[in-house]
Every structure is written in C-alpha cells, then in structure tokens.
C-alpha cells in the first residue's frame, strides 16, 4: 500500500494490465506525444494529462499508438481491432469530443455484439476526461456520462477516488464489452493509499461512503466529494445522511440506492451532468417508479443549470454544484 494520486493509480493500472496481456494496445492523441518531432524525449507529453507517461518506453510504438487528430478514424480502428481480437484502450481526450466520433461509439461499438447476434465481442476501454473547473469553457468541460448511459451495449464507470480508479479500470480493461471510463480532470491530484498489486472492483456495486438514517444522497465522480462535504456539515446539525457512490451508471446498483431510500424515505441526487435527461433525473424517475411507497418527501436533484459551461471563473463556480447547494436540497426535504 502506497499513497498515490488518482493519475498515478490509473497509470499504474495501465502498466500492470499491459504487462499481463500482450494484446492490450493504447491508441489516442499524444499518448506519448512528440511523434515524428525529433525531440530528446520519446514521450514528450505522456498523454495530455500526463497519465500515459512512460508506457511507450516500456511497451514500444507497436503497442502505444499516437494518432492524428482523427477521433472517428482511431476510435473506429480501436473497435475494429477489438472485434479482431485485440484489447485496445482508446483515449478520447475530452468527453466533449464524442461529437466527432459519435457514430463509432454509439452505432458501432455499442451495437456490435447484439446486432450481429453475439458473434463478436468488443473488449474496448475508452478512457476519457470529464468535468468542469479548469476555466476552459463549454467544449472541454462537460460531463456526458448520461449520454453514454443512454446506449445499451456500453458500460460506464466514473471513479471518484484513486482506489476506485485503479480497481474500476482493471475491471474495464478485463471486461469483454466497450466501457467508457470517465476520469474527472479535477481529481487527478487527489491522493490516498492504493494497493500496489492488481485488484478489480466489480461493476454495479456501489460504495457507501457514509451511513445515516435521515437522507440518502447519491453522487457520482467529483460530486461524491461535494456530497460528502455537505453530509459532514449536516451531521454537525444533527442530520444524518447516507452518501452512496454507485461508481458505474451502467450497470447501476439500484439495489443499494433503493435499500437506503427504504430506510430514509428521502433522496437527493448530485450530479455534474445536466438537469435534463440526465443521471439525476433518471435515478429520480426510477425511484419514483419503484420506491414511491417509501418516499416521505420529493426527490431532489442537484445539478448544474441548463446552460453551456462558461469560462469565466465566477460564472463556472456558479455552474458547478457545491456543498452549499447540496445542503440546501437536503434541508428542503428534511423539513418536510
């Protein structure tokens, strides 16, 4: 057990899995960086976020493939390679770039196994980054996990901690279906003790971060930390919250959520995705459908407003849910 950052936990997983399975290849833009440029360092970047640093030195250009800015082509190539027996890990630099390779992900990868009658599998992991907070505006800051969730055939993981990042990425890579692995940009520096050896966290098993009998809070990715901060502050006021991090939206651990709602009768969902057709509204609808008998108050969703993400720091801070907004939502239904 060593203290590691979320970034290093992901990198360590890539090293360990590539050592385990020679059919794993990395494919994406600037995974090494500096291809063809003649600089002194073979991997000048090691990924736009520095996650893949060192991998080309260990595994070579045959397995670490830097691509042109051609997401549609390299995502399609990753899918084709997966169908043909490799186990690719493709990097979609920002999840916002789904816009330029959407057909490949939603019409090819997601449907390949089902539409062709189960003949082939697509053991593909798509690592991507999500989340606001870097003041980089509307095309680099979105949280699009709900869009991926919409398409049966894809699995979607959103690690909120370094420990989960390693365990979920291990599962993603070993899984025989296409997995969208959403790394939150503001979590890369988060540090905690992470085992040095390999371990896998099963998909569809929520982590209960805090346990309390008054209100259930479900949160994903960085919002788990925001929700936990709010729950700790509320505890000082005598309101005891359960905080649940489902860790994956597909599969979704509704059992853990519903069991908690059965006890608390109150639910707040915190998500950085949008308020319309989002994960928060999805879980609210499922809870209303299945758990209406247990609810003592309306289900509350804490999400950003229905607006593109601005670059201005003060406006972006207004956009992203914070602990105060979570506390306000909990208090609003706790009093009912």
């Amino acid at each position, binding site marked *: 057990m060593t203290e590691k950052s979320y970034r290093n936990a992901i990198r360590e997983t890539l090293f360990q899995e590539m050592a385990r399975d020679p059919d794993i290849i990395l494919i994406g833009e600037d995974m090494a960086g500096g291809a063809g440029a003649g600089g002194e360092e073979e991997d000048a970047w090691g990924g736009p976020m520095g996650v893949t640093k060192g991998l080309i030195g260990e595994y070579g250009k045959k397995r670490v493939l830097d*691509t042109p800015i051609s997401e*549609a082509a390299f995502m399609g190539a990753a899918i084709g390679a997966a169908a*043909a027996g490799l186990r690719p890990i493709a990097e979609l630099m920002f999840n916002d770039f789904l816009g330029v390779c959407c057909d490949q992900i939603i019409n090819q990868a997601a449907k390949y196994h089902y539409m062709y009658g189960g003949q082939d599998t697509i053991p593909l992991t798509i690592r991507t980054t999500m989340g606001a907070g870097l003041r980089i505006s509307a095309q680099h800051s979105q949280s699009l996990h709900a869009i991926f969730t919409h398409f049966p055939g894809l699995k979607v993981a959103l690690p909120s901690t370094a420990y989960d990042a390693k365990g979920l990425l291990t599962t993603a890579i070993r899984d025989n279906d296409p997995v969208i692995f959403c790394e939150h940009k503001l979590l890369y520096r988060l540090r905690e003790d992470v085992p040095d050896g390999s371990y896998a966290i099963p998909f569809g098993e929520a982590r209960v971060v805090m346990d309390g009998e008054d209100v259930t809070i479900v949160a994903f990715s960085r919002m788990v930390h925001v929700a936990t901060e709010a729950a700790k502050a509320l505890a000082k006021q005598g309101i005891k919250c359960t905080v649940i991090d489902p860790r994956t939206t597909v599969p979704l651990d509704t059992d853990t959520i519903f069991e908690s709602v059965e006890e608390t009768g109150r639910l707040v969902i915190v998500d950085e995705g949008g308020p319309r057709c989002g994960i928060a509204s999805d879980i609210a609808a499922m809870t209303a459908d299945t758990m209406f008998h247990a609810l003592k108050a309306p289900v509350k969703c804490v999400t950003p407003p229905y607006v593109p993400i601005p670059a201005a720091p003060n406006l972006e801070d207004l956009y992203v849910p914070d602990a105060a907004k979570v506390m306000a939502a909990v208090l609003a239904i706790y009093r009912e």
Partner: protein
Amino acid sequence: MDKKHNQLLWAYRTMQTIRLFEERMHDVFTTGEVPGFVHLYAGQEACAAGVCANLTEVDYFHITHRAHGPAIARGADVTDVAREIYCRRDGMCRGRGGSTHLHDAARKIIGANSGVGSGAALACGSALAARHRGDGGIAAALIGEGGANQGVVSEAMNLAAIWKLPVLFIFENNGYAEATSADYAIAGGDLSARAPAFAMPGEIVDGSDYFAVADSVAAAAARARAGEGPCLIEVRNLRLYGHYEGDAQKYRPPGELEEYRRTKDCLINFRAHVLAEGSLTAGDMDVIDQQVAALIDAAYEAARTAPLPDPEELMQNIYATNC
C-alpha cells in the same frame, strides 16, 4: 490449369449466385414477406467477386448496407444469408441485423454497416490486429461512392497511410448515393484522384469486368501483404435496381439501365470472355446455372419457413460480460 479453371468456375458460380439471389429478392419483396428494406447488389457482382478472389482466410472483408452480394462472394452460406434477411432465429445474426447488417465472424465478413463509410475506420482496426498477430492478413473495405464522402473515410485513409496498414479501400461507384448522382456529389468526379493526397496508389477499374477488378485487387493485396501500405481502387459499375426495393428510380436518365444491361452486364461479359478464350465451356456454366437455381430455391424456402426469434432473445447478447 486446374487452379485457374477452378478459379473461373468459382467466379462464375459466385456472380451467378448473387444475381439469382437478388433477382429472387426483387420478386419476393413485393409480396411483403421480407421485413424492413433491402438494397440489391445485382449489377455489381464482379466487384465483390473480384475482391474476394484475392482474399484468404486470414483476411477481413468489410461490407456495406448493400450486403447480400458481398457476403455471398466471401463464402457466406446462402441459406444463412436468406434467413437473416428474413430476420429469422437461425439467420447469421439471429435475426437481429437483417438485410443491412449481415456479419459472419467465422468468415471474417465484417459489419455490414448502415453507417456508410464507417467500415473504412473499422478496417484499419482489423488490419492493425492482423499486423499485431503477424499472420499476414489484410483488410479489404467496400465503401460506396456515397460513403466515400464521409469524413471518417478520409481520416481512415490518412491513418492507414501513416501507419502503413494493409487496407484496401475499394470505392464502389455505382453511380448513385441513394438518389444523388456521383457526378453531382464528387468534386472532380474522380474518387481515385484522392489516393495521391494520402500517399497511396489509386486507380479506376471497370466494374463490369471481373478480370479487371481481380487483377487490380491482386496487385493491391500483394502490395499490402508486403508491408507497403494501403491502396485505393475505384470500381465503376451500376446497380440494376433502386437504392432500395420500391425505389421508382426517376432520377435515372432514360435508357441508362437498358444500355448498361446490354453492354456492361458483368455476367454476360464474363461468359463472353471465357468462351472466347476457351477457358470455360457453355456446358460448364449451364450446369452451374442449374445448381445455383436449385440452391436459391432451397435457401428462400428455408428462410420463408424458418421461425422468428424467440421472445426471450430480445434481451440477450446486449453484453458479453454479465451486466
């Protein structure tokens, strides 16, 4: 001699099987017994046959929504194909894909694809996997001239070229993307002219001439297997029917199809060619005609009478690993 003879018999049988399969589909579609819509390959047989004559079992063949002919050319079981088009339980994709999504993993017939152009990118992946394994395999991707205008195709050509992937981009120019003519939609009118922009060889081939297609593909395949990278071949032909069955084809100039049938029918031209050089006899081909007719009868009868998928199949095979 025997090898060449067998190859010619195979080519004729393949093209004739496709032609009769599609003509039968044209006839039965009007009865309403075939679900969905179908895109017929009649008129284009020499292209798929000329490509597949040069593929081995380690090679991948990426096909388009106009899928029946290419699947048959690559050796798919004709009854399997018919059952899939009829969406039957025992079709090659268990009735989930239908006419436009034929796929036969065992024969490396990949992804009949309704997202036209996407096969170009997937083919780069097949080629990458073949190279990773070092088994000498290549990937041939059929792409319609309409699909060739998708951005992903240009991206894929560039990717294949910089990585020197063994991919054959076969642009099948049948004159129309749905109802829009190639003359209107392709700047400069020449898809093969895009090849030098991606540092690969490119040429135009007469798609009514099986031998021209097969020779061109043979050279491209040899080059790809030697590690010299991708090629582009623009195969020019016409489809003998509409974009889909039911298409009134009022966009065609008067007499276009009649003229094509008279002068450019690849089966008539093949027959004339082999008879002139004495490599096959009329008797050789008449026997094949009878065998193929019986095969088509049996395949359609099997498809028509086969059961639809069981209701529980709706929710099967969404994921390969439990979810």
